[in-house]
């Protein structure tokens, strides 16, 4: 069985390959060996691994090498410096705030897109993906236009943490929505109707029946949202302004370190960010898998 660290290896219907559905994996290939003659398979495996090593593994290994190259002392110094800690604080606060916000509003948006009908719905559905398609620097300028000095809505958020939050919310908007939509589409309405006919009120149906089955998808989207927020750079560049302690995110601090030739420091902070992303993704996938399995057992 192959497992993706994002938990999803099939169903491009969800359009966005970045989204994960916990619990779905590629089944093992069939026993027939058509494109899989032994000799050629080894060669193709070798070539593929060489390519992946060159492109993905070696660069990442270089970071690890550099981070530990200076010894534990240098590593610790880099990640506990005042600027690094402040940057972590800003980044993690923003990521948590935006992810929680997305969990609520992403769920609501998916609900509206699936269960309601209104003119322009199909168009809106396509446009939900706009933050994905837009280059991050363009997003940054767009955010600045709306929330900066000449803001038409009177909000002046440049150089403030809420400015960073708004930019991150824009970029991660599609993530929870697209994770929840397919699940919501597939939900069997019978159970809801049965509960209603047994006297359960609307909210009760929602909390006891619908939300639990959506929880894995919401968590999965939240995990992706959190990872994206932690890693984000381009979209917070102009509206954040890189104010140390207020709007400087970890990715910006890494860049500052590299430009000052502190390669060990940059590598150390990178390792921390990567570890946070991986841990959150794996954690949420495990949680999501467990919840999904519990649901299956309950439904059986």
């Amino acid at each position: 069985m192959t497992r993706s660290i994002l938990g999803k290896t099939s169903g491009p219907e969800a359009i966005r390959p970045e989204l994960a559905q916990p619990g779905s994996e590629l089944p093992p290939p069939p026993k027939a060996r058509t494109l899989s003659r032994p000799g050629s398979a080894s060669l193709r495996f070798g070539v593929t691994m060489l390519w992946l090593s060159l492109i993905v593994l070696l660069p990442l290994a270089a970071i690890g090498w550099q981070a530990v190259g200076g010894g534990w002392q240098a590593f610790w110094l880099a990640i506990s410096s005042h600027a690094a800690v402040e940057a972590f604080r800003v980044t993690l606060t923003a990521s948590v705030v935006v992810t929680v916000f997305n969990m609520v509003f992403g769920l609501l948006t998916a609900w509206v897109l699936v269960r309601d009908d209104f003119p322009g719905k199909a168009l809106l559905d396509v446009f939900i993906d706009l933050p994905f398609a837009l280059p991050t620097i363009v997003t940054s300028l767009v955010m600045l236009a709306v929330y900066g000095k000449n803001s038409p809505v009177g909000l002046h958020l440049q150089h403030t943490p809420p400015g960073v939050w708004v930019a991150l919310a824009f970029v991660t908007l599609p993530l929870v929505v697209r994770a929840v939509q397919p699940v919501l589409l597939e939900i069997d309405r019978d159970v809801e109707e049965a509960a209603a006919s047994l006297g359960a009120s609307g909210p009760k149906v929602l909390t006891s029946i619908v939300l639990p089955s959506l929880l894995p998808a919401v968590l999965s989207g939240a995990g992706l949202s959190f990872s994206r927020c932690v890693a984000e750079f381009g979209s917070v560049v102009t509206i954040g302004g890189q104010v140390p302690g207020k709007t400087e995110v970890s990715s910006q601090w890494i860049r500052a370190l590299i430009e000052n030739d502190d390669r060990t420091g940059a590598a150390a902070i990178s390792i921390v960010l990567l570890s946070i992303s991986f841990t959150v993704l794996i954690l949420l996938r495990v949680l999501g898998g467990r919840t999904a399995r519990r649901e299956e057992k309950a439904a059986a």
Partner: protein
Amino acid sequence: MVLAYIGVMLILPVILILWRTFRPGFGQFYDWISTPAAISALNLSVLVVAIVLPLNVIFGVMTAILLVRNRFRGRGVLQAVVDLPFAVSPIIVGVALILLWGSAGALGFVENDFGFRIIFGAPGIVLASIFVTLPFVVREVAPVLQEVGTEQEQAAATLGSNFWQTFWRVTLPSIGWGLTYGVVLTTARTLGEFGGVIMVSSNLPGESQTLTLLVNDRYNRGAEYGAYALSTLLMGVAVTFLIVKTVVQVRRKRARQT
């Protein structure tokens, strides 16, 4: 209420940018997107796409076939490695490449001894773009291969077809739409890549700036209108991609149902 949220978050910014860009008139817009720096940026961006795309298609399809059609012990690891780029920040991609290929890096001999610049040269931008777009083709082609199954390939084999004939005439056409979708995603992402390229490029106007880098440069220099104009152009490209993506999806669904 939800619609108001979407409206403010998504639609208001787009309309505002369009208004700000075209208010001084189309002439000024056109001037700012056809400056020499802009043309050179466009050339570089297109060049990068032209190199990244074939490489990702070839190796992506190869990887997908390997993942779906072959059994071997490292399959899970291969899948995880393919998905790795999704979890890595573009800045970290840049750092990784600098640490590996930079003149003080592990493979620094390539630059020092052969004079072949990767960091601060076009190859660096290409490598960064390949890194971030690596999963797209694989993840779109693999499920299609999975669904299509091996019946046709087996039939071809019984009729005496060898590996390459089977591949060209049976496998490749069946993954057509999946591959197209992966290509669309890869192109869009490569054109829009910013965090990775700002680290590995020397960022000189007219020389080593991609479209996204030029937008950033103009903003930093205070040429705000120029930055917005180019942004609008990129936004138009993004919207075009969204439409193409949707069309491909619809066609794909239809093809599946026949």
